[in-house]
């Protein structure tokens, strides 16, 4: 109870602080007082300087914003069904959401990371992960569509996530420790028996294809945030843990007892070598691997078995614990790779570890005991510095490439700029309200583009016109090019952004496809011109090979369908013109529309339930005669024997 009381009193203090500081700040920050409006204004028809890829959190999707305007450009479905695009509804994309638990329509998308080469953003892919049903995903930045989803077996609460500096590996940690392998056992017996596996996924440099490489079976702590080493510390990865108490109930109290938890430092190159030389053991596992073919608009889901596991005790010198105060959350590595910033959520200070000191301590074998056989380094030996009185509730840190770090403080609701040279606070600005993650384009790489900072807030309250009890989360854009940060813009975000990744638009925009080429369409049921359109019956399955072009379907009159049939509409958009999608909807279909880009084919299943004549139509206003883009399907009684007929304009 004492702890709760002290936290409560902290909160009261914070409320008072906000109450005092807030008003004065607002008066100063009017758009008329500065030229803030001008600096975020992107004139009609002009393009933003940066792409921002924002996690959608519990929406399961990722959204694309232009920065500095804060304009929403696109929502890309990843882990949740998206009726707008038919993702997870049409036959081609349903397999993307397949898992070892079966089809799952929803996911909790957390962190996002753009692929890197030599520690710099390269704009090939964006990777992300799902917290609830452990999965990782790749989005291809030529189509802005999800290209692959890989389930992570033997894990739960897939949270700590990072990409190594040449995109060699994607790291996926376990937040909710579990029995490994899973078994029927008493929850009370958690301590010492649960595990926190850290999974390494190998990335194919040509395709971005993901393959489960190995799992490091860590003690049953909760692995939270992860970041890769870079430059000097390349080959290492760092991840925070909380609940080193291994509590299984009322974690808000019971997991807040130890004065120090850990950051794990893991030499993955050493473990890779060990596995390459035959180390590790195979464990039973089952996981889905879903791959989307952009040329066929079709995904395949394959169930795979077994995972190579590694016991860290078997590889001396590969895994260490760095003690850090009070339930750390963020774990961020500066552009040089020397500094590892750990944020104890309940600590009054910000701890910065030194990589070179860590290496020295390891060489000197100067340990402070061990936890489950993993050496614990001495706090004083590896400490680089402490930022004193930085704020309350530090969460995440990004870097501007000019020797400064920016840390978010959830409880005191602010972002604080401090120097990596002397650990002195340089500036602090309020956020509205209770900031979680922050993002500087490239701020998690060797080469940050330190012009803007985006704060992603958890609480919105009065920032926008009220929309009932549920408000979209709010983000704030700051100019960080000067000594002091300047708030420029508020904009609402989708779901709950856990992190975002920004990149100069010039690194991506020229790769963005305008159409899918019809002559490269590999869909099993594609047709390339109207003369190939047809309707075929196979028992109670009817396959309609249909095309769409401004402004008609071919065929647009179909007869011979019966109640109880399974009708598959394979619809090809014959257009080869930029931004001329067509949609397809069928009355009574128990699924979403098809939204079909030029040159692509998509498949909808319709199971007619009543006799009659039913219209179909184009759902995406495509042309001056879009309204006329419609057709009819006749449905005859079950058991009847109608002739299969199809036509366009009587032909």
């Amino acid at each position, binding site marked *: 109870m004492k702890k709760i009381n002290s936290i409560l009193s902290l909160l009261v203090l914070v409320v008072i602080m906000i109450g005092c500081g807030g008003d004065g700040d607002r008066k100063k920050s009017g758009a008329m007082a500065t030229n803030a409006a001008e600096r975020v204004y992107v004139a009609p028809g002009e393009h933003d300087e940066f792409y921002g890829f924002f996690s959608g959190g519990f929406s399961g999707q990722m959204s694309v914003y232009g920065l500095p305007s804060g304009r929403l450009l696109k929502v890309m479905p990843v882990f949740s069904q998206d009726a707008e695009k038919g993702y997870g509804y049409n036959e081609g994309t349903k397999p993307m959401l397949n898992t070892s638990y079966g089809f799952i329509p929803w996911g909790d998308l957390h962190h996002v990371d753009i692929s890197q080469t030599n520690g710099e953003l390269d704009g090939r892919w964006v990777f992300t992960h799902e917290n609830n049903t452990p999965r990782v995903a790749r989005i291809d930045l030529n189509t802005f569509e999800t290209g692959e989803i890989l389930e992570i077996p033997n894990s739960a609460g897939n949270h700590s996530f990072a990409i190594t500096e040449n995109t060699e590996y994607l790291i996926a940690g376990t937040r909710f420790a579990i029995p490994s392998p899973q078994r029927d056992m008493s929850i009370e017996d958690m301590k010492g028996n649960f595990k926190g596996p850290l999974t390494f996924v190998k990335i194919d440099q040509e395709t971005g294809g993901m393959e489960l490489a190995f799992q490091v079976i860590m003690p049953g702590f909760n692995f939270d945030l992860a970041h890769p080493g870079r430059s000097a510390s390349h080959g290492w990865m760092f991840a925070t843990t909380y609940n080193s108490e291994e509590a299984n109930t009322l974690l808000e109290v019971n997991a807040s007892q130890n004065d120090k938890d850990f950051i794990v430092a893991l030499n993955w190159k050493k473990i890779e070598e060990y596995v390459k030389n035959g180390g590790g053991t195979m464990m039973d596992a089952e996981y889905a691997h879903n791959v989307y073919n952009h040329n066929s608009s079709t995904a395949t889901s394959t169930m795979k078995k077994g995972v190579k596991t590694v016991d860290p005790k078997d590889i001396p010198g590969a895994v260490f614990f760095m003690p850090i105060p009070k339930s750390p959350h963020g774990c961020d590595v500066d552009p040089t790779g020397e500094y590892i910033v750990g944020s104890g959520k309940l600590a009054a200070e910000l701890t910065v570890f030194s990589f070179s000191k860590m290496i020295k301590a390891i060489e000197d074998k100067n340990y402070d005991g061990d936890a489950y056989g993993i050496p614990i380094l001495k706090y004083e030996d590896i400490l680089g510095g402490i930022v004193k009185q930085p704020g309350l509730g530090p969460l995440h840190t990004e870097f501007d490439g000019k020797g400064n770090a920016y840390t978010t403080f959830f409880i005191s609701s602010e972002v604080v700029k401090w120097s990596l040279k002397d650990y002195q606070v340089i500036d602090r600005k309020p956020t509205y309200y209770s900031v979680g993650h922050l993002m500087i384009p490239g701020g998690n790489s060797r080469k940050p583009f330190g012009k803007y900072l985006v704060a992603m807030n958890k609480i919105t309250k009065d920032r926008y016109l009220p929309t009932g009890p549920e408000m979209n989360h709010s983000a704030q854009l700051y100019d960080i090019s000067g000594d002091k940060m300047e708030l420029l813009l508020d904009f609402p975000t989708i779901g709950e952004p856990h992190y975002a990744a920004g990149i100069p638009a010039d690194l991506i925009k020229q790769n963005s496809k305008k*159409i899918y080429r019809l002559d490269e369409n590999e869909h099993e049921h594609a047709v390339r011109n109207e003369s190939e359109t047809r309707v075929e019956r196979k028992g109670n399955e009817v396959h309609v090979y249909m095309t769409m*072009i*401004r402004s008609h379907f071919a065929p647009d009159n179909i007869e011979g369908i019966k109640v109880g049939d399974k009708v598959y509409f394979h619809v090809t958009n014959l257009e*080869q*013109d*930029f931004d001329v999608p067509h949609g397809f909807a069928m009355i009574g279909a128990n699924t979403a529309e098809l939204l079909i880009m030029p040159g692509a084919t998509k498949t909808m299943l319709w199971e007619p339930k009543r006799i009659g004549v039913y219209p179909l139509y184009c759902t995406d206003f495509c042309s*001056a*005669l879009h309204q006329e883009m419609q057709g009819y399907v006749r449905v005859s009684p079950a058991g009847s024997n109608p002739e299969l007929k199809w036509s366009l304009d009587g032909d």
Partner: protein
Amino acid sequence: MKTSGIIMILGSALLLGLFYFPLWNITLGAPQYPEPLGMDIYISGIQGEEEFDIQNIDGVNHYIGMKKIPKPEEMWEFNVFPLVIGGMAGLGILLGFLGFFRKISPNWFLGWFVLMLVLGVLGMYDFNVWLTDYGTDLDPKAILKLTDEAGNPISYKPPLFGTQQILNFTAHSYPRLGAWLMFAGMFLTLVAWWIGKRSLKTQNI
């Protein structure tokens, strides 16, 4: 006569550029087409500026009942023009050589120029006839049938030369590199004639 012959050879050889570069170009811009659709007209056929421009121009044109942009085998011109251009270039080069070796009078160069001019004008006339047919001979079942103030069907003929507004589209029709090389070549043959004449005069004095 040597200089004159060389210039005649060069000038007529420039016609061969028409086998590599487009003669003419028509672009169609509209609010919905900030990057205009465009077609390059070569002596042997019509190509889109971008890969799918012809298909997309046909797609737009179907609303007003225009015929599709012709393929090379659908217009005799695309078979005859290369022969005419190749023949004239060959003839001009031959005349240049003969002039170089003083076998013929420079007036032959002028004769070549006049013939080329006549053929050029005929070619432009034919091109204009095709544009007129393309812009006015429309499918009677056309989706959009528009008339002018006098009640006559409006013409969708793109301009032979220049810029013109056609409904939502702005059509630009201008010569391209092949044509400019031809014009330059023809001018050079005139220069060849003039220099040839002058050198003969100097000799005579």
